[in-house]
C-alpha cells in the first residue's frame, strides 16, 4: 500500500507537484493520467526517491520512505521505465538478475527465477544469453517487466511502460500484461498519457493537471461523474468507446429484451463489456450468424446492436441524473 500526504516538489519557484494526496490500496492498480508536464512522472519518481520531495510524506506498507536508505527502499520496489533501461552490456539473464544479485540471492535461486519469468512473459529460454539490442522493442519491454518482477517486490512503479512501442505491439502487450497472474496481486502505480491504456489497466485513475489531482476514481466515475470540465474535455475524444467499454452486459441486464428459444445461437458471457460485444457481433454478421444471446440464471436475453444501444442510453441517463 502506497500513501501520499500533501506531497510537493518545487524546482526553483515552479511547483511541478503541488500538495497532492492519494493512496494505492494493496493489490490495486492506480494509473496517473495527464498531459506531459502535469507532474505525473515526478510523482512516481518521488516514491522510489529518484526525486526527493520538497514537502509532504510518503508511506509504503506502513513505513515512511525517508526512514530507510534509498538503495534498500528501491530494491523492494519494482521499477519499469518507458525506454526499458536495460543494461546494453548485460545479457537478458543478467539484466533480469540485477536486483536478486543486489539482494545476494544464491545462483540456483536466481537461475530458477529467471527461467520462470522468461516463461511467464512468453520469451524463449534461449533469449537468456542474448543482449538487449538483439531483441525487438516489445520483447525488450517484456524483459524490462521481468527485471522489475524478479525479486518479487510487493509494489511496482511503472513509468509509461509501453510508451516507446508502436500501437499494435502496444495493444498486444497490454492484453498480455492484464492476464499476467503475477501482476494481479501487486500494488501498482503506473504513469501514462494514453487514455485507452489508463482505462484498460487501472482499477482507479488519477487524472492530474498542473501538478494537482483533478479527479481520482474508477473509469465509470470519471466518465459519468466528471469533477470538472477538464475531466470531460480530457476524455472527449474517446468518450463513446470508453463508455461502451466501461459498461458490462450485466449492468444493463434488466434493460435488455428477453430472447426466444432457437437454434444457431451465439452466447456471450454477461461479464463482457458492450464495446467488445458490439465488435464481435459486427464481425459475426459478415459470416452470416444471426442470433446472439446472453444467459444468466436460466434467463436468456436477446443481444443485438439496437438492444445494446438502447440499454446503453437508458443506463447512462440513469447514472448521470440519479
Amino acid at each position, binding site marked *: 500500500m502506497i500513501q501520499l500526504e500533501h506531497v510537493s516538489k518545487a524546482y526553483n519557484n515552479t511547483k511541478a507537484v503541488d500538495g497532492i494526496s492519494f493512496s494505492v490500496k494493496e493489490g490495486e492498480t492506480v494509473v496517473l493520467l495527464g498531459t506531459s508536464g502535469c507532474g505525473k512522472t515526478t510523482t512516481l519518481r518521488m516514491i*522510489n526517491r*529518484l526525486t526527493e520531495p520538497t514537502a509532504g510524506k510518503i508511506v509504503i506498507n506502513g513505513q515512511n520512505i525517508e526512514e530507510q536508505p534509498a*538503495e*534498500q*527502499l*528501491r*530494491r*523492494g520496489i519494482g*521499477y519499469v*521505465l*518507458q*525506454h*526499458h*533501461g*536495460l*543494461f*546494453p*552490456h548485460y545479457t537478458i539473464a543478467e539484466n533480469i538478475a*540485477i*536486483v536478486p544479485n*543486489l539482494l545476494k540471492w544464491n545462483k540456483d535461486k536466481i537461475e530458477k527465477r529467471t527461467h520462470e519469468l522468461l516463461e511467464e512473459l512468453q520469451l524463449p529460454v534461449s533469449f537468456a544469453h542474448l*543482449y538487449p539490442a538483439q531483441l525487438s522493442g516489445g520483447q525488450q519491454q517484456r524483459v524490462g517487466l521481468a*527485471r522489475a518482477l524478479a525479486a518479487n517486490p510487493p509494489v511496482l*512503479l511503472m513509468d509509461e511502460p509501453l510508451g516507446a512501442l508502436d500501437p499494435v505491439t502496444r495493444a498486444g502487450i497490454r492484453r498480455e500484461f492484464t492476464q499476467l497472474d503475477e501482476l494481479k496481486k501487486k500494488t501498482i502505480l503506473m504513469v501514462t498519457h494514453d487514455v485507452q491504456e489508463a482505462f484498460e489497466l487501472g482499477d482507479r485513475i488519477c487524472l492530474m493537471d498542473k501538478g494537482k489531482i483533478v479527479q481520482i476514481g474508477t473509469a465509470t466515475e470519471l466518465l459519468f461523474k466528471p469533477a470538472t470540465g477538464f475531466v470531460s474535455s480530457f476524455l472527449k475524444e474517446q468518450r463513446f468507446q470508453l463508455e461502451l467499454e466501461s459498461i458490462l452486459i450485466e449492468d444493463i441486464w434488466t434493460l435488455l429484451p428477453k430472447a426466444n428459444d432457437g437454434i444457431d445461437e451465439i452466447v456471450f458471457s454477461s461479464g463482457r463489456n458492450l464495446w467488445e460485444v458490439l465488435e464481435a457481433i459486427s464481425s459475426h454478421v459478415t459470416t452470416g450468424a444471426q442470433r446472439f444471446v446472453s444467459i444468466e440464471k436460466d434467463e436468456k436475453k436477446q443481444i443485438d446492436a439496437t438492444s445494446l444501444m438502447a440499454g446503453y442510453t437508458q443506463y447512462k441517463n440513469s447514472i448521470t441524473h440519479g
Partner: protein
Amino acid sequence: MDEQQNLWSFMLQQSDKLLEQTLAHIGLTFISLLLSILIGVPAGIWISRKKQFSGAVLGLAGILQTIPSIALLGFMIPLLGIGAKPAIVALMLYAFLPIIRNTYTGIIGVNAAVTDAAKGMGMSSVQVLFKVELPLAMPVILAGIRTATVINVGVATLAAYIAAGGLGEFIFGGIALNNTNMILAGAIPAALLAIFFDFLLAKVQHLNIKKTRSALIIFPVILIVLSSFYLLPSAISSKMLAGFTPEFMGRSDGYLGLKNKYGLKIRTVVISDAVMYKAAYEKQLDVISGYSTDGRLKAYDLIVLQDDKTIFPPYYAAPIARQEVLQKYPELEPTLNLLSGRINDSIMTELNYRVDYLKQSPEKVAKDFLTGQKLYKNPRNGNKGVIRMGSKIFGEQYILLQMYAILLKGYTDLAVETKTGLGGTKICFDALTNNQIDLYPEYTGTGLLVILQPDSKTVEKMMGDKDRVYTFVQQQFIKRYGIKWLKPIGFNNAYALMMRRKQAQELKIQTISQLKMFIDNN
C-alpha cells in the same frame, strides 16, 4: 638501396643502444600514460558529477596541450630538475586532455534511462559507476587513451633534450651530426611504436563489450609491465654523471674520442644544450660538454678542462658565403672581413654572457661592440640588393649575424634579410647550398667533421693545427660546393668538457686525463 643497407647496418651496429632507447621510450610513454589515467579518469568522473567544474577542468587541460612540448619540458626543469621525472610529468600533462575529456563525454553519453534504471533498482552510486557507467563509457575512454598514447610516443622523443633518454637521442643526434641513418634509426622505431600501439589499442577498443570486462583487468597489467621498462637499472655506474648533447654523443671528436683516446668511462645522459649548463650549476650533472665561448660558462661559474690529448679539433668561426653572391656584390667580402681578428675567446664569452644570461638583445650587444671598436656607421639607403643571412639557433650566431647586418647596412648599399634559428648545421648548410640563404657563420671544425667528413687519417693529421684545418676546409668548400670561407673572426668556439669551478678545485681536476684518473680510482 645503398642507403637502406647502410641504415640496416647502422641499426645492427647500434642495436644495444637502439634497444635501450626503445625500451626507455616505451617506458616513458607508459609511465606517463599510467599516471595520466590514474589522475585523468577520476578527474573525468568527478567533473561528470559536478558539471559546474567541467568547463574549468577541460579548459585547463586544453591549455596544457597548447603549450609547445619543448617549452613544457623547459618549465619542468626548475621544478623537477632534469632526467625522467620532468619528462614523465610533462608527458602526463599532455595526455590529460584526451583522457579527461573522453572519460567525461563517455560518462555523460551513457543513456540516462540506463542509469535511471540502475538507480531505480537500488544500485548504490559506486555500483552505478563501476557496473554501468564505466563499462558503457569504456570504448570512448579507450579512444582517449589511444589518442594519448600516440601523442606521448611522439612527444617522448623530445625527452632526449632533458636527459630522459628515448629514441629522441638518435633523432636529435642525427640532426646535429647530419647523419641521416641516425635520424632514421630513431624516427622509424618511434613511428612504428606509434602505429603498433595505436593498432593494439584499436583492437582492445573494438572488442565486444563482454570481453572488455576481462580486458579491463589485463590492460592495467600490461600498462604496468610496459612502464617498468624504464626502471631497468643502468649498466654503468659511477659517482660522476656527465650530460652530453646528442651531437657530442655521436662524434669522434666528442664522446667517442673521450672513450677511445682518454679511456674515459663515465655515466652519461643525453641532454639539450639549452638546459645543460644550468643542470651542471645545480649539481644535477658533474661534467658537461660545452662550448668554450659560451656565456653561461661565466654565468654559472664553470671551468673548461684542458684537452691534454687534443681530441677536440679547432672551431674557428668565419662567415661562409656562396661564391656567386660574392662576385655579384664585390663590396660584400671586404665588409664581412672587417670583423676579422677583432674577437677573441674571452670577448666572445663576454658577449655571449650578455645575451644568454643578462638577456640583452643580440642587436644591442652587436651595436655596442661595434661602437666600442669604432666600426659603427649609420645605415645607408640599402637599395642595391638583398643579402640573405642565416644562423643556427644560439646566441653567438645571433650576435655575429647582427654585427654583419650593421656592417653591411653601414658600409654598403645592400639591404639585409636575416633568417635566424635554422636549427643545426645540416639545416643551415642545406639552406646555403639550396640558395635559400647567401651566407652564415660556420666553424672550421664543423665544416671539417660534419660536412666534409674526410677519412679518419686525414682528420688525425690535421687535428692539432688550426691553420691546416682552415686551409683544408677553404679549399674543399670551394671545390665541392662553390662556397667560400672568409677570414676567421678570431675566437675558437671549440668543444670542451666543463665542471663546476668549486668541485674541480676540490678534486684537483684540471685536465681530462685527471678526470679519467679520478673516475677510475673512485
